[in-house]
Structure formats: C-alpha cells, structure tokens
C-alpha cells in the first residue's frame, strides 16, 4: 500500500475501489483516500452517479451531508457517516480524480447545491442533443460559475444520456422537486415533442392554443373555411376544408383541434401542435431552462419565426458563455434551413392539393401544372359566366329573347348580349340578366359594339346546340380560343364540328392559345 495517509488518494488502485469499499470496511486496508486534505475526523461522503462523483462533502467549511445520500446511482454507495468512526473508508474519490482530475479541484472548492447537480442530471438526460444540453445547463445556472458548469456538464453528459431516459429517474432518486420536473419533461417527450418545453415556447404554444380556439369558436361555415386567413393552420385548413366541405364545419373543427388536446387530425403536422399544447398546457410549471431549438419544428409560420428568433437569441446567449461564434452561425444557418424547408414543404403541399383539384392533370412539372391551373381557372370562370347567363336567359327566352337570338345568329357573332368578357373588368359571376335588361331596348347591333371587350363571348346556342339554327362554322372562327381551354375541361361530348379546330389547339401551348383567342376576338369586333 502506497498510501501515506488515510485520505491520500491512490491512483493506482482505483480500479477495484468498489470492491475495496464493499469488502473492507476497515480503514487500514483502504488505499482509497479522498480529498487531499486533512480530514482526519471529517466524514467524507461522496455521491456517485454513473461513476462520477456527484456530490462531495466539503471539508471543514461545510459539513453538510448530502440530503440525497441514497440518491447515488448504481455506483458504490458510501456510507461513511453511517455511524462509522473517523476511520471510515474514504470514498473512492480517486476514481473520479483519475478521470477528471482537473474538475475535482473546482469541485472541491466550490460548494455545490444538491438541486443543481441533480437537476443537471435530469435535464441532460432529457434532450437528445448533448450540445444543447450544455447550452441549457450553462444558461440554466447563472449563479454557477461557468468554469465549473461546462466541464461538469460535459463530463456528466456522456454517462447520463447513455442511459435511457425513463430509467434515469428511477435509478437515481433525486430530490422530489427535480423529480417532478423531470417527470414533467418526460411527459413532454412522450407527447411527441422530443423536447422539454421552455417558457417562451410554452407561451407561444399557449398563444397558439388560444389562437386555435378562437377560429374554432367562430362559425365554421364553408365560406369561413375558404376565406380563412389565419396563418397558423391555414395550410391545414385548406386540406381539411376540402375534405370537410361536405361535412360542414364539423370535420374542420376537429381538424383544428380547438381545445388544444391531442386530436387525431388529418394533417400530420397538427399532431405536434396538439401534443405540444396539451403537454404544455397540462403542466402547471414552466421550465424556462429547457429550451430546444427543435421546438421550431413544431411551430408554423409566424410562430415559427417567433420561436426561431427567440431561440436564436437564447442560443446566442448560451453560446456567448462558450464564446464560439461558429456554432452561432451554424445554428442560424440550421434554423434558416429548417424554415426554408418548411416553406418548401408548404408550397409542395399546396401544389399537390391544386393538382387534385384540376381534372386530368397529369403534369409533374410545377410550371406546366401551374399553367394548367391558370387555364382551368379561366375556363371555369367562363363556364360559370355562361351558365349564369343561360340561367338568367332561359326564363326570358319566352318573353322577349327570341328577337335577340336571330340577331345573334346573324353572325354578329359576338353575343355581346351574353356579356362574356375577360375576367378583369366584370366579375366572372356577373349577372347576365341585368345587362340584358338594361340593353334589351337597344338594338342588338348597338349592343354588339358595346361596352364589352371583344372576344370569346359566345352564344351558347351557337356553340353547343345540337340543332342549331345558326351556322356554327361562322361562329367557330370567332371563339376557337375560347373553345379550347374550355373544351379540354369539359366532357368530351362536344359537337364534332368544333373538334377539328379545337383539336389543333391542345397541341399548342395553353398560354399562346388563350392569347390567340383574344386576338381573334379582337379582330372580329374591330
């Protein structure tokens, strides 16, 4: 035995210090001495956790007994002061010393609080990223000297996260307070966040929750669904609204998760929100210390940006303690990438929804799909115009409309009385009867030249009528362009006489065809 004193640490024999401790209680055979120092009679006790000294009893200054003396983990428990004499076997400090010699000195000289230690044990166990843990730990313990914290956190982290989270609290019995915190954190993890909620994120989630509640409280009519400008779940609203249109607002309400509880939603993204808000809302306390940049993933749109900003600030604060700007930059870039990815995902999701809406859309290219969407929208607008005019015209057919029909048949061709026009000036759903009523006394010729921009105004009877009294060919030249975008979306039962001309159009690009029609329309009226 090469120990000169009871408490002189012996580095060579640290391997089997455990055995020594358990086997021999006599001080004479103990090579393990603890602190360099002079505590002949001081009772030394070290708490071990996963092979590291967690707490040690200060020397002459403070003889505090670690309250959670039994909180040490599977490591050896030192019952030095369990009634043993002054010759109690010293705690196996040298083991720790051997590993972290540099830290021991700081440990020795720094009075440590229990809660700090235990809290750090639990907090690092929670998050999956060690780096952030250190940040949080560093930021969490302002009073603690930074010199002590980072090394001890870093040292403690490797063993701690290695253990699975659930077993961690069970293995170590912390003070009740910290245990509660950890359980709270665990509840957050199980909620699907993977991260403990921090104050700001909690406040944000509560804000989000309240915002979720508000829209749901409003009458969930379809018009509200479609007109929603709420930025939180607008993406989800669109998709949910499409599915719940028939069901009214019920599905929408469910999808919106008004109560903030975990609700099965059609949007996978919403899961995080309910989980987050529910887990957070159910927790009475807030852990301001645990703060994860990953909460950004759970937030959306401006909430995302808020969290990003705040998290970035906090990360920067934490990093300033470390003094590394590179991590700050990388973190900012990482955050930016996350937000960018979310934006792209959102856009892709909308594109997919749009693709579903457009009939016979087999385009995988975004640009062509958007082109088709534009054409489809125009054709829909025109179709609705025509139909509304037809609806308004039909009742008047018997009254006084017959006089107009022949005039239109004369090849004036524009059917301006139909009032078809390009979308811009009049709304697509412009009521035709109104125009007609105002112009009825006018001769059709005047109406022809009238206020409407030329074009594709087409007489439905001329275009589609099977037993047309008019010459379809004459009218054909006038609105082939109109026919084209419209035809492709209609059922293929078009009158055959239009197929020849229309057939040529699908081959051409959509945009050019619509321009063509406009030109032709212009020519006819000029």
């Amino acid at each position, binding site marked *: 035995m090469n120990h000169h004193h009871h408490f002189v640490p012996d580095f060579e024999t640290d391997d089997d210090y455990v055995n020594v401790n358990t086997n021999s209680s006599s001080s004479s055979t103990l090579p393990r001495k603890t602190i360099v120092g002079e505590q002949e009679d001081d009772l030394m006790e070290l708490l071990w956790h996963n092979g590291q000294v967690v707490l040690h009893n200060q020397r002459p200054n403070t003889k505090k007994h670690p309250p959670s003396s039994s909180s040490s983990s599977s490591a050896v428990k030192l019952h030095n002061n369990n009634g043993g004499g002054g010759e109690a076997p010293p705690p196996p400090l040298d083991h720790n010393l051997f590993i972290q010699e540099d830290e021991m000195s700081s440990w020795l000289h720094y009075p440590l609080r229990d809660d700090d230690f235990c809290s750090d044990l639990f907090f690092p166990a929670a998050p999956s990223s060690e780096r952030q843990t250190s940040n949080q730990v560093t930021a969490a313990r302002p009073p603690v000297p930074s010199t002590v914290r980072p090394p001890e956190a870093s040292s403690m982290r490797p063993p701690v996260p290695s253990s699975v989270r659930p077993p961690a609290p069970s293995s170590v019995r912390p003070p009740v307070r910290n245990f509660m915190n950890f359980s709270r954190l665990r509840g957050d993890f199980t909620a699907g966040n993977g991260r403990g909620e921090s104050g700001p994120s909690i406040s944000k989630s509560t804000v989000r929750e309240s915002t979720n509640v508000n829209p749901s409280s409003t009458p969930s009519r379809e018009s509200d669904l*479609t*007109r929603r400008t709420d930025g939180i779940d*607008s*993406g989800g609203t*669109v998709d949910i*609204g*499409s599915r719940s*249109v028939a069901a009214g607002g019920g599905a929408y309400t469910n999808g919106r998760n008004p109560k903030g509880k975990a609700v099965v939603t059609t949007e996978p993204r919403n899961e995080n929100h309910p989980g987050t808000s529910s887990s957070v809302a159910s927790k009475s306390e807030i852990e301001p210390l645990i703060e994860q940049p990953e909460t950004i993933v759970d937030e959306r749109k401006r909430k995302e940006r808020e969290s990003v900003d705040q998290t970035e600030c906090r990360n920067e604060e934490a990093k300033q303690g470390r003094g590394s700007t590179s991590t700050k930059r990388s973190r900012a870039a990482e955050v930016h990438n996350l937000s960018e990815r979310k*934006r792209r995902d*959102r*856009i892709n999701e*909308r*594109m997919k*929804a*749009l693709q579903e*809406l*457009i009939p016979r859309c087999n385009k995988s*290219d*975004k*640009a062509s799909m*958007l*082109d088709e*969407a*534009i054409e*489809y*929208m*125009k054709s*829909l*607008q025109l*179709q*609705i115009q*025509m*139909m*509304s005019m*037809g*609806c308004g015209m*039909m*009742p008047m*057919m018997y009254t006084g409309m017959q006089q107009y029909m022949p005039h239109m048949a004369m090849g004036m061709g524009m059917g301006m009385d139909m009032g078809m026009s390009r*979308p811009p000036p009049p*709304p697509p*759903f412009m009521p035709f009867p109104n125009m007609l009523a105002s112009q009825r006394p006018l001769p059709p010729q005047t109406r022809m030249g009238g206020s409407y921009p030329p074009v594709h105004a087409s007489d*439905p*009877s001329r*275009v*589609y*009528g*099977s*037993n*047309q*009294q008019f010459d379809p060919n004459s009218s054909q030249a006038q609105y082939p362009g109109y026919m084209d975008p419209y035809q492709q979306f*209609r*059922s293929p*039962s078009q009158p055959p006489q239009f197929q020849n001309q229309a057939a040529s159009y699908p081959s051409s690009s959509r945009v050019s065809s619509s321009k063509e029609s406009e030109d032709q329309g212009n020519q006819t009226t000029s």
Partner: protein
Amino acid sequence: MSNRRSRQSSSALRISDDQMIDLVSQLSQLLPEIRERRRSDKVSASKVLEETCNYIRKLHREVDNLSERLSQLLDSVDEDSHEASVIRSLLM
C-alpha cells in the same frame, strides 16, 4: 447532401424562378381576393397556391349550383325547343 439537394430542387430550377414568379403573378391576377386585397408583391407563393385552391373549389361549387339551376330550367322547358338544347349544351 448537396447533390441530393440540388437534385431535389433541380425540378424547380429547371423551371427557373422567373417562370415561377410569372406564374404566381398570373394566378394572383386571376384570384379576386389577392387582386383586391393586396397590391403589394409580397404575396407568398404558398398563399397564392392556397387561394387558388380555395378559388377553384368555390368555382366548382358555383358550377354545381348553376348546373342544378339549369337542370331545373330544362325540366320546365319543352324537350324539343332549342332552349332545351341550349341548356343541355350548357350542362354537357
């Protein structure tokens, strides 16, 4: 990873940003809401796409309504009149 990213965004790059911007602006022109509500060019693409989807659904509903009305009208009209043919053609 950079290769993957370039491949992922290559489809968009092929289109070119200008093209996308042009298309988005076209859509925004068509959409009455955006046209009336915001004159700025700050409309995000996702917003435009969302409004497009909403607008198309609205148009669908309108078409359905009009179709229903036209079919009702058709019932009230003689089968052989040319109005009936008109209506039928409208309804397709």
